[in-house]
């Protein structure tokens, strides 16, 4: 909010933080936005049996400009990805993204050229909800966990207009200014070689087993 840059850390900000986060978490309006079968479960979550309105999410906003939460419900095709990004860009800050179902989270069983392997290639995801599709309770569980996350959020400095994310991170000390350290971090996130085009993203550091040589 700009205030924190001018003030030393103090009790004032923590209380304001709590208050603002309480407000943000308590009335987080999702965008009406279904891409596939998960949207059916999302609608059912809004219905009377599950009643998402109990968590302050009664209105699924038809326009991204009035929405705070983007529930990506369903597989994101390559063709849909720019549209999803566009919708995300149109949402006002602060905004959150919940990736509903395995297709949105990682591509799920659709490991092919038509589907984006995880919507986090396109937008930053705050909460992943697995399931195919997740039952309404699973979605509500994800939403509640997201609310808890929002409630503990801290006001942080944002990049100045025109400043690149990298410069911003270096200025605020998120990454070490030493480029060699950064290189190590970059290598960690680079796609692992050896497995065929990252098809199997299960084994974390495990050597390729016979099952991969089908």
């Amino acid at each position: 909010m700009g205030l924190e840059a001018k003030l030393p850390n103090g009790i004032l900000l923590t209380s304001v933080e709590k208050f603002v986060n309480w407000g943000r978490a308590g009335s987080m309006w999702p965008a009406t936005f279904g891409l596939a079968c998960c949207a059916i479960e999302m609608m059912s979550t809004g219905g009377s049996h599950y009643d998402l309105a109990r968590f302050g999410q009664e209105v699924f906003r038809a326009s991204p400009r009035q929405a705070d939460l983007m529930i990506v419900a369903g597989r994101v095709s390559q063709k849909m990805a720019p549209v999803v990004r566009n919708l995300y860009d149109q949402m006002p800050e602060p905004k959150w993204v919940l990736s509903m179902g395995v297709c949105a989270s990682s591509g799920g069983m659709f490991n092919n050229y038509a589907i984006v392997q995880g919507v986090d290639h396109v937008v930053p995801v705050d909460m992943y909800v697995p399931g195919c599709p997740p039952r309404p309770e699973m979605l509500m569980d994800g939403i509640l966990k997201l609310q808890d996350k929002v409630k503990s959020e801290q006001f942080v400095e944002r990049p100045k207009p025109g400043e690149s994310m990298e410069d911003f991170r270096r200025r605020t000390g998120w990454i070490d200014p030493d480029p060699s350290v950064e290189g190590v971090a970059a290598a960690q996130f680079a796609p692992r070689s050896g497995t065929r085009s990252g098809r199997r993203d299960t084994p974390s550091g495990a050597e390729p087993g016979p099952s991969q040589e089908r």
Partner: protein
Amino acid sequence: MFNALRKGFGLTFKSMFRPSSTTEYPDTRRDTAPRFHGRHVLNRWPDGLEKCVGCELCAWACPADAIFVRGEDNTPQARFSPGERYGADYQINYLRCIFCGLCIEACPTRALTMTNEYELSADKREDFIFTKEMLLAPLPEGAKPPPHTDDEVEARGMTYYQGHAAQDPLRHWQADLAAPEEHGDPVTTDLLDDPRPGGGQG
């Protein structure tokens, strides 16, 4: 006009006293179906040995390629499962798993089954890779965690696979060692005189 208003608002007013159909989710939960497809569990025998024999059939059956299994041989000194092999590494990626249950159908030893647990959301991708330690069922009361030695297992005198194993699950590696030239196909011949009803078919 007044009548219409009374009728309309009356209905709204009356419905305030109707029982609500909402389940107050985090406080009260609807029961899942008894065979709900939830998080997996790797079962154990009552003596603590693992049921998984590391055959990787679940990984092969998985349409989403969510399961990774690496089997290793049991040794007489370190036995994890009553079979020849055991699942040394077992991982399920819940960001790929579609909870279809094909792995459960494929599992020959009922080692892999599903629980009714469904609250799996998290905000980090790494949190969705469940390792063997997270998937294994808790040890039964009084059981010793594997590995066991073969002598221990034999002294226990337990029957595994409900007595349906085509071969003694414990000692066949010794038979292989004793008669390497007759390695032929002992399992198949045993299956031919299978005592099971409809024996030898499966």
